[in-house]
């Protein structure tokens, strides 16, 4: 189905929160077109020491769901400039 478990919110920890850390990268099958961090990380296969920008950018359009532990931004006072102006809350 197309339902996203992580968007149900109150239904417990998200898929993101429940996923465990990869501990052996040689056991991971990446789909075609996705580069593995192994080639750039030998000899530290169990715990990669570094990830290249190109490797990291592959996740940009895939990991869109809000993490469970990200507080609502208005609580933090972290809002876009346009929002504050629209609300008359600009500090200028």
């Amino acid at each position, binding site marked *: 189905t197309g339902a996203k478990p992580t968007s149900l919110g109150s239904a417990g920890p998200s898929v993101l929160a429940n996923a465990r*850390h990869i501990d052996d990268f040689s056991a991971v*099958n990446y789909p075609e077109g996705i580069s593995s961090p192994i080639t750039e990380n030998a000899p530290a296969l*169990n*715990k990669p020491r570094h990830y290249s920008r190109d490797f990291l950018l592959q996740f*940009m359009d895939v990991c869109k769901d809000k993490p469970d532990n990200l507080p609502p931004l208005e609580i933090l006072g972290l809002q876009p400039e346009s929002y504050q102006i629209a609300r008359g809350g*600009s500090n200028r």
Partner: protein
Amino acid sequence: EEVDMQQQAENIRTVFNDPTNFNVKHPLFSAWTLWFDSPATKGRNMPQTPMTSFPQTPVPQTPGGLASAAQGWMEDIKRVISFDSVEEFWGMYNNIVPPSNLPQRANYYLFKEGIIPAWEDDANKNGGKWSIQLPKDKNRPNVDKMWLYTMLAAIGETFDPVLANAENPDDAPQSLITGVIVSTRPQFYRLSIWTRSAPQATGTDEDNKLKERVEAIGRHFKVNVLGYQSNAKLHAPLATEVEFLSHKDSDKKGKQARKIIV
């Protein structure tokens, strides 16, 4: 045995194999915390309920070491989130406000977990920072990508290649990077990279090696992260070169400060 391997691989699902039902994530070498402040966070207390489950800004317990100056400094800086995987980083990134859209006088601080974004932290007190200042009008279209690439170099640990080059996988040396910052001001943006140590120009072999290592971080920042030619002159009205200053020298300002420029 081949069947077992196949079975094992099918039970390990990355976000690429199954975006809605993955069961593994990619660990970062360090855990990181994102902090934020702006005029809107000043004096703002986190609501007592029902949000008590969200992390409060911690006041580090130090035996008189962390000056009250740092506590005052940290009072208005809010902890946004901590994460230790690539997937969580992007979940955060895709759900917060990019620098180009932040109000004036706002800052994001992305620091290794356990290090507060203040000079007074033990990890920062002997260090310094690489920074660049960019005029706002010309760089509004660039600043989001520059900040993203700065964060990716930080969490991917590519600023300081000692980690990647270490021979012994169980005995990794400590990276010089403690955190990265983006600041929005009325007329410019500033990007900074904080280091654990700063060369003292003592002329010892050790200090010279540290200087080389720090300079390599600055060159990587200028060329690979920000995308400038290595020989580009960046100084202009409201713009600086990519320059390094120790936190101790930042205090002095002016003549005594020893700047390194790449």
